[in-house]
């Protein structure tokens, strides 16, 4: 059947929440073509494209201030310090942090998780204690806990996954128990877009006296977040997935927990008094930011947050919802296509993982590349979940605010190419 007719009928541009062409004009890279074709970027789960405002914020810091922060008594250093601090406030506001919580800059989600795995888990856990995570985590929210368990004698337990990639929350009370000291869970799977019922997990965990770390790497970039109402003890995410630069990420934590934790990185700027054999440490957040931080990165992350706030997170959610439904609809008409993740799209963010017949994801991705379509292929740093799905990898299309139905058409139409070569 003729797909084009179908989608033109049911999904005209007016049903999209955002003025996408005005937004697209702000992303310099969208002026490029890839392999001579229109560039359809569907790899937002790996990293996002960057708007001019963010690129300019980094350049501006280097061209107009350049100075290091803290302790500088001259104008440019003072101003750099002010802008760095303002970026921190910006992030705090964006995630709804109140004065009981703090924002710490790290180099990314992965480092943020490790800061907690060292400074909190290794400090407080021992044999008999349990860390609970899930079978759908990104390796960044799994491997650090494996190592923390190895180091402390604590045990790692898993909330199991249903065959469709959703979590089995019914048996939750059997997994999160009196021995549970920490629950580390994703807000959104990077493979299927599945978003677990965090409220329920956090409530139970807190009732058991456990702390909760939420991996927001995929979620925070696409949804409004309020840590104060959510109630999690830690939230971690990366700048590069939310229109911000590489090399900057966030660890949000409740102040009382952060104050009691040990720092991970020791050095300058995080110490208060240093003698030959010992040092005392500054209060949060400085304690966790040893060394010269990624000043340009933090300032540009602040700019990314301004950009996203102006677009409006709720509108981004709705835009992606329309696109995801469109994608699922078109995909459902491709016989050879097997997709992964809950059928109920309302429990999912804008991510769509699939395989095409028995074509290896690598081959599918390489052929889509020739059509200008950028997707990710492989195990998506989620080997345990691949095991549940019984595959070694998938093709993943992931959406963001600048995507349009054209990108999805290019993807689905590109599958025909795969049939030509491997069919």
């Amino acid at each position: 059947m003729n797909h084009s007719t179908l989608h033109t009928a049911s999904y005209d541009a007016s049903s999209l929440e955002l003025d996408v062409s005005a937004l697209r004009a702000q992303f310099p890279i969208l002026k490029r073509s890839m392999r001579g074709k229109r560039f359809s970027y569907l790899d937002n789960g790996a990293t996002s494209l960057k708007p001019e405002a963010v690129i300019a914020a980094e350049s501006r810091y280097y061209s107009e201030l350049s100075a290091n922060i803290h302790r500088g008594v001259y104008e440019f250093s003072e101003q750099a310090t002010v802008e760095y601090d303002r970026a921190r406030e910006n992030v705090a506001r964006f995630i709804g942090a109140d004065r009981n919580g703090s924002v710490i800059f790290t180099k990314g989600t992965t480092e943020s998780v490790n800061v907690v795995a060292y400074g909190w888990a290794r400090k407080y856990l021992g044999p008999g204690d349990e860390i609970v995570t899930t079978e759908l985590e990104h390796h960044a929210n799994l491997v650090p806990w494996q190592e923390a368990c190895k180091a402390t004698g604590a045990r790692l337990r898993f909330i199991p996954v249903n065959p469709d990639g959703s979590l089995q929350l019914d048996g939750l009370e059997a997994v999160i128990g009196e021995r549970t000291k920490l629950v580390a869970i994703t807000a959104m799977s990077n493979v299927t877009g599945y978003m677990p019922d965090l409220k329920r997990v956090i409530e139970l965990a807190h009732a058991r006296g456990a702390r909760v770390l939420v991996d927001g790497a995929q979620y925070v970039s696409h949804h409004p977040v309020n840590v104060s109402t959510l109630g999690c003890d830690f939230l971690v995410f990366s700048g590069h997935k939310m229109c911000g630069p590489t090399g900057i990420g966030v660890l949000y934590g409740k102040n009382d927990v952060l104050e009691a934790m040990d720092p991970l990185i020791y050095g300058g700027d995080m110490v208060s008094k240093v003698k030959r054999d010992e040092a005392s440490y500054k209060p949060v957040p400085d304690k966790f930011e040893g060394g010269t931080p990624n000043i340009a990165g933090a300032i540009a992350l602040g700019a990314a947050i301004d950009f996203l706030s102006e677009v409006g997170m709720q509108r981004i959610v709705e835009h992606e919802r329309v696109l995801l439904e469109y994608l699922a609809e078109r995909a459902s008409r491709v016989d050879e296509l097997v997709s992964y993740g809950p059928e109920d799209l309302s429990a999912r963010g804008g991510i769509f993982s699939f395989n095409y017949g028995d074509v290896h994801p690598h081959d599918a991705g390489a052929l889509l590349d020739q059509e200008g379509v950028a997707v990710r292929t492989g195990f998506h740093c989620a080997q345990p979940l691949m095991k549940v799905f019984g595959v070694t990898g998938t093709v993943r299309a992931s959406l963001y605010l600048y995507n349009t139905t054209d990108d999805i058409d290019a993807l689905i139409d590109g599958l025909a190419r795969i049939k030509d070569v491997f069919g």
Partner: protein
Amino acid sequence: MSLEDDLYKEIILENYRSKKNRRKIEGATLHAEGANPSCGDDLELFLSIEDGVVADASYDGVGCSICCASANLLCESLHGRSTADAQRILGQFKGMLLDELEPEFEDEISDLEAMQGVKHYPVRIKCALLPWNTLEGLLDGVQ
């Protein structure tokens, strides 16, 4: 530079589709597993060595077309060769993909040159090399 010229040449697709060497060898002299987990490539390589000569070679597992085609070509090119020959071919193949060396394969195994186009797709080099790196481990064990 088109994908069909470099990566999905007919000769590569044929080797990918061929099931001739895609099987396990019971009681193989040498056997090893190799994986590029992040790509989802996971192969086993089998060699039967008799009097220092490769009597049979096969592979099994999951891999992309480049990886499987490379494995099939590997098996084809080793049949009847001494392990010293195998070493030499291995060296030539890796040199072709990693060091931009012009390979000098004999006529019977000149199909291996078909893999040269993979060079233009840096991420796929790992796929093409997986069976050969697995072979390298096996041959190191022999010496």
